[in-house]
């Protein structure tokens, strides 16, 4: 039984690896894949996908599956962690400009 395991973003960085191939007889679900591939407890807010689709940790896996682990997504428009400072600035700009 062979499962390709991929890691993205901060998960990839923390583990120091982007991909492993698991020769994993007895691996039943996504939770097992994480445990076998990393040997670590699951971080809070970890997400998973099986064959390019979002999946829960109880999702069964089969030979040949690609399983991916990653943090919550942050696509689309920019969002800075310094959000509050930013909002204040934007408001100031708004008032200063001759809209």
């Amino acid at each position, binding site marked *: 039984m062979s499962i390709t395991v*991929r890691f*993205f*973003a*901060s998960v990839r960085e923390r583990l120091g690896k982007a991909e492993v191939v698991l020769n994993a007889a007895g691996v039943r679900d996504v939770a097992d894949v994480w445990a076998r591939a990393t040997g670590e407890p699951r971080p809070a807010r970890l997400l998973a*996908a099986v064959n*390019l*689709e*979002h999946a829960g940790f109880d999702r069964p896996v089969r030979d040949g599956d690609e399983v*991916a682990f*990653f*943090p*919550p*997504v*942050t*696509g*689309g*428009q*920019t*969002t*800075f*962690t*310094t959000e509050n*400072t*930013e909002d204040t*600035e934007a408001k100031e700009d708004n008032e200063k400009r001759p809209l």
Partner: protein
Amino acid sequence: MKVQVTDAPFDPWREIESYRREHPELAGKYGATAIFVGTLRELSHGAQVSTMTLEHYPGMTERELEATCREAAGRWDILDCLVLHRVGKLAPDEPIVLVAVWAAHRAPAFDACRHVVEALKSRVPFWKRERTASGERWVEPESP
């Protein structure tokens, strides 16, 4: 419908124009085009300029974007949908994402466009890493 992930800067207006030209069958059918462009902001004036690197999950990204557009087309009466999303390293003021929706009427155009934009926050596998004066860090997701 078209979804595309690109690691090169893009001009949203040129992309809309050329998509429209490639789809002459839309002419006269749509009364409403709703568009959203997300752009990289500066953290602050002057020195504290930030750069951003966007990582994604090739294959899954396109699949999720397509699913989102199909979902919008099932839920609202729209004619077409175009999504472009940048990946790689971005400079401030560069477009990150373009969502354009064509519909006969304004309400479904607005609703579908916003639906696709919100999906980018919750289900499409993009991750941002920003560089500021104090170093690099992964951007935290917004609270829902």
